[in-house]
């Protein structure tokens, strides 16, 4: 199941852009490493992920050449809601905004697909100065594999410092070719559960482009603005997700497989600012706007405040707010009175919701080269989120909690060491 995939193609290019002088440990060896283990746990027996990650960076030729290597192993267990309505007698009647809704009790009645998956990921990047005036080029390769999903990616980019190194311009390009082999085969779009599946692999390709400007505003303030465009084509559906087709009385007539479009193009606008106060503490704020042709538009805002504690430690509390609108083809269920649409999905991840994260990272330097970090975060997803008025479709109550999208929370705990 494509639960955790190497997402940000530019994590690679981005890491590569780090110059030698940014390596936090001033040490004789020009390698710096980070090892991190983390646990992600959702409420209601949903997804659980245990992971170990390694990140290594090397600086050669006084920073003219930078290498970076990332490795990761994830063990994913638990069960994820399929999107179908509960099949027991107490079926909720979900009607259009003109009708009423009844919510049933717990999501333990939710139909879930269990899994036990191991994911391995690897990426490597090279970043080189190509002249003496601050121009650098980078290339990267990424790979990941889990039971039913394989990813291969290439990235490249350029960056240039201008304006007495107060401004950095950057451009990046990434290409991914993924192969999907759903367990049990790939269902036909909107076909009933139990009908024949194709056993051949499916493919998904994506291209991403990013333009960025980093601007120093003062001795204590630095900002960054990025624009990104991405387009995915191929098999974009989730083979394990289902939609319930109900009759007028709310009884399930049928459960069918979902179907998503074969292309998805979107834009990202990102802005970030870091500002250091007189006492040395640092405020970081980031904002991102996303719009795409599926209708899943989003707004994200994060705020972090890093406070120095004693001489060698710090704590950085962090809040994040996220809101997304539902995909055009998202629906909590379908009616057997109407013709099937071309595309439909009940995947909670495509619904309208807000999410809130509250967390903090504690860091402790135990030597000139070693720094421990401990992070705890609480994440909550609230379907419906903000209601800006009459944006509901007629027979698609994409706003508000439903019995098959009740929301959930998750806890993250991470322990790492930079050395």
């Amino acid at each position, binding site marked *: 199941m494509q639960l955790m995939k190497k*997402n940000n193609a530019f994590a690679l290019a981005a890491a590569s852009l780090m110059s030698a002088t940014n390596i936090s440990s001033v040490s004789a060896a020009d390698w710096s490493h980070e090892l991190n283990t*983390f646990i992600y746990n959702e409420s209601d027996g949903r997804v659980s992920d245990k992971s170990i990650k390694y990140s290594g960076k090397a600086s050669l030729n006084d920073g003219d050449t930078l290498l970076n290597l990332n490795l990761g192993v994830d063990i994913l267990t638990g069960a994820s809601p399929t999107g179908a309505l509960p099949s027991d007698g107490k079926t909720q009647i979900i009607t259009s905004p003109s009708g009423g809704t009844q919510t049933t009790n717990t999501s333990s009645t939710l139909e879930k697909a269990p899994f036990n998956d191991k994911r391995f990921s690897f990426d490597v990047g090279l970043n080189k100065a190509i002249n003496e005036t601050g121009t650098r080029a980078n290339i990267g390769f990424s790979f990941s594999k889990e039971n039913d999903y394989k990813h291969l990616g290439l990235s490249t980019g350029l960056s240039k410092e201008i304006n007495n190194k107060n401004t950095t311009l950057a451009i990046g390009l990434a290409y991914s070719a993924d192969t999907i082999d759903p367990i049990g085969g790939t269902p036909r779009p909107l076909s009933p559960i139990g009908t024949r599946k194709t056993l051949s692999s499916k493919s998904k390709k994506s291209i991403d482009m990013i333009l960025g400007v980093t601007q120093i505003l003062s001795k204590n303030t630095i900002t960054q603005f990025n624009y990104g465009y991405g387009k995915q084509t191929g098999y974009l559906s989730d083979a394990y997700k289902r939609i319930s087709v109900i009759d007028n009385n709310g009884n399930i007539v049928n459960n069918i497989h979902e179907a998503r479009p074969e292309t998805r193009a979107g834009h990202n606008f990102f802005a970030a600012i870091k500002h250091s106060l007189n006492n040395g503490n640092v405020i970081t704020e980031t904002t991102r706007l996303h719009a795409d042709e599926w209708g899943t538009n989003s707004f994200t805002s994060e705020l972090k405040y890093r406070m120095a504690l004693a001489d060698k430690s710090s704590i950085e509390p962090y809040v994040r707010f996220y809101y997304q609108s539902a995909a055009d083809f998202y629906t909590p269920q379908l009616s057997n009175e109407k013709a099937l649409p071309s595309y439909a999905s009940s995947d909670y991840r495509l619904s309208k919701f807000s999410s809130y994260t509250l967390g903090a990272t504690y860091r402790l330097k135990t030597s000139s080269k070693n720094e421990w970090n401990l992070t705890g975060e609480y994440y909550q997803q609230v379907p419906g989120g903000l209601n800006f008025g009459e944006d509901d479709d007629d027979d698609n109550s994409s706003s508000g909690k439903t019995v098959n999208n009740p929301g959930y929370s998750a806890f993250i705990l991470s322990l790492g060491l930079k050395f």
Partner: protein
Amino acid sequence: MKMKLFLISISLLLGACSSNVKPWERGNLARAEMTFGAEGLINTINDHVYFSKEATSGGSSFAAGGCGCN
């Protein structure tokens, strides 16, 4: 009046842009906490979580900033 305000804003903006941090004044910016991309694996982890649980992803920061040495 509108034209006056507009011209004043432009000159203020230009003034702000011309604030140029000198190479020897970058001590604060050289700190890892003031550098984009120096946060470490916790950022990667968060990005993965949000990618998996939300419909939109990408558009995060590039590594940049720092001391500007060499």
